[in-house]
């Protein structure tokens, strides 16, 4: 078996395992209290967002602080497609990807004229302008603070033409299958698997290799007469389209689009997800996204009532003690736990969660199992990516003189 074939077989195996893990999520997620449709949808959607972001950040090292703009554009486009055309999700998703791609092309074209932190601030500026305008003066298009929703008296010309009637609060459909609950999750899951597959292909392609080369030394690439801009712009547009797709899925599973999806905190969140999971790894971003969403939903919901029943097995006094020392970290304190988690992970595992997993695997005796091999493989990518980071130039900003 040639090297190429073996790597292709390995990729197929990775994809197969990934698909199984994603599709069986409703089973295993129950064990950690996450086995309900909305959270699993969020895992898939933000996983997709982070995978896309990783194509830009992980491969090229360009740190965008404005990807939430594309998320918002995807959501708004989707809701408008619902309102004007049809509740069918396919045109909605299509237009969302298209429009966010166009916006990404425009913003990327301008922002990619700069590197390092100057690039980051340009993307941040565009996203913040989008957010501020969407919240206020663009209210006729975005419905401002309340958010854009589908109303039963919207035109929906395609649905009307085909004789599909909508009553009450309309929900997205896929040829009659309503996009809510588990059906919506499976739809997102399939899209996530497709998105993962595309990302895998990009990572393995010559295109991906060129992006990594740009990351490791852009100046050298340019000296050799290689024009990096088209490659960078492609990566930017692709990741913008992923973000648009994620935004679209948010609106598909819940037909509402709000401006706060474009805020810098939302852009920052995807950066954190990617770094937390492991920049430049295949699975890391998804893992990071799931971790943050899990904290947001599950940790924030733990209150004293829940805590004291958790520690029920302990004697009264010890129970109270445990409740007292743990309660600052859950419920309204979930932010605190998240902050501590960020610090601990990045201090002890520079490559994010994926590096941690890689280390664990290496500790296992006789790591032969499929899963072990796959994770190991991914962990290797992490380490490569980290090795790259040491010599990265584009994101290393030249330190100006303190004058």
């Amino acid at each position, binding site marked *: 078996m040639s090297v190429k074939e073996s790597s292709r077989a390995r990729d197929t195996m990775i994809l197969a395992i990934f698909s199984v893990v994603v599709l069986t999520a409703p089973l295993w997620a129950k064990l950690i209290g996450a086995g309900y449709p909305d959270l699993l949808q969020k895992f898939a959607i933000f996983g997709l967002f982070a995978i896309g972001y990783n194509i830009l*950040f992980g491969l090229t090292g360009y*740190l965008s602080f404005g990807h939430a703009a594309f998320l918002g554009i995807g959501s708004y486009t989707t809701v408008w497609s619902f309102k004007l055309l049809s509740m069918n999700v396919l045109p909605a998703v299509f237009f969302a990807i298209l429009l966010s791609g166009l916006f990404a092309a425009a913003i990327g074209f*301008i922002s990619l*004229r*700069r590197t390092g*932190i*100057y690039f980051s*601030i*340009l993307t*941040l*500026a*565009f996203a*913040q*302008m989008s957010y*501020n*305008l969407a*919240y*206020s*003066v*663009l209210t006729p298009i975005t419905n401002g603070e309340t958010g854009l929703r589908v109303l039963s008296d919207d035109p929906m010309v395609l649905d009307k033409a085909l004789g599909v009637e909508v009553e009450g609060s309309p929900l997205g459909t896929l040829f009659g299958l309503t996009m809510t609950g588990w059906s919506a999750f499976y739809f997102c899951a399939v899209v996530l698997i497709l998105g993962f597959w595309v990302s895998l292909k990009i990572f393995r392609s010559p295109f991906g290799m060129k992006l990594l080369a740009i990351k490791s030394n852009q100046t050298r690439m340019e000296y050799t007469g290689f024009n990096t801009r088209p490659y960078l712009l492609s990566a930017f547009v692709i990741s913008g389209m992923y973000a648009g797709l994620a935004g679209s899925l948010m609106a598909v599973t819940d037909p509402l689009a709000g401006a706060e999806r474009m805020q*810098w905190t939302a852009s*920052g969140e995807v*950066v*954190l997800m990617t*770094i*937390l999971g492991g*920049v430049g790894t295949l699975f890391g971003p998804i893992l990071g996204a799931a971790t943050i969403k899990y904290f947001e939903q599950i940790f924030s919901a733990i209150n004293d009532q829940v805590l004291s029943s958790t520690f029920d097995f302990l004697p009264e006094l010890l129970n109270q003690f445990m409740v007292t020392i743990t309660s*600052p970290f859950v419920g309204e*304190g979930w*932010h*605190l736990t*998240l*902050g*501590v*988690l*960020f*610090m601990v*992970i*990045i*201090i002890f595992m*520079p490559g994010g969660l994926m590096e941690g997993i890689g280390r664990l695997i290496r500790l296992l005796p006789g790591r032969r199992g499929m899963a072990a091999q796959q994770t190991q493989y991914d962990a290797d990518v992490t380490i490569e990516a980290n090795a790259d*980071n*040491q010599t*990265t130039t584009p*994101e*290393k*900003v*030249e*330190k*100006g*003189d*303190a*004058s």
Partner: protein
Amino acid sequence: MDAILLQILNGLDKGGAYALIALGLTLVFGTLGVVNFAHGALFMLGAFVAVSVQGLLTISKKVKDESITFFDAYKETPYLELWWGDIGTAIIDFAVPISILVAIPVMLLIGLAMERGLVRHFYKRDHADQILVTFGLAIVIQEIIKANFGANPIPTAAPAAVAGSANIGALFGIDGLVYPWWRMMYLVFSLAIIGAVFAFLHMTTFGMVVRAGMHDRETVGLLGINIERRFTIVFGIAAIVAGLAGVMYTPILPPDYHMGMDFLVLSFVVVVVGGMGSLGGAVAAGFLLGILQSFASMNEVKSILPGIDQIIIYLVAVIILLVRPRGLLGKD
């Protein structure tokens, strides 16, 4: 005419504040190469030094309000007032200026602890790691403050003598030109701090070594100079500057635990527009953005360009970065 003058004055005032808030950030980046997302948290901690000082000064004798039986309601009289009468009242009145003195050692300690305990290990890591770890730290600091002081803003007034407005128009024979004392003091204060930091880096041996160390840490190290320790001190100075910016801001903006995050993005924009690591650039960018923001908020401008006040800062940032690749005064 007076309207224009007022907006210019307002722009300068805002600019001074922006420059001061951004100064510490640019100092740390310029010298240590660290992208410090916890800078906003330092600013907020400074403001809470003022809150704490005010709280300590106003520890009160509580006289129970007997008309309320369902819970304990008190009418509070600070002990300082009880003991020293008017002098006590005056001391309380000067809580914010006193906080400036307190903030210097407190913020220095916080800064040193942060650098020694955490940031130092991240000098050689890439920016992404620095962002994640300092962002995590910012959240932790923020949540600790929230747990102790609550989420609501806490009123922290300027001394009564300077809490109101000055009729500065009267000096020049222009009617209607009044401006708050405290805001004018903030402007002067920020210029003084900026000048001091600048002088420190350029006119002292210490500053020279630090600047040399920025260019070539190893060579300076080989000369037998302990550059690490100097970097630590620079971080401490940056923490003091951020903290003082926070203390001085409390009469303008009643502090709450989230104020650091609110200013984080703004301070980054100011620093980057000025040119990362350039102190002069940060100051120039601060004033430029302040003045433009002030003018963009005028009704006359808003009626022509609706919503311009919402985006002006970002719009200017984009234009400047496209015209000048490294910001206003940044070097390639």
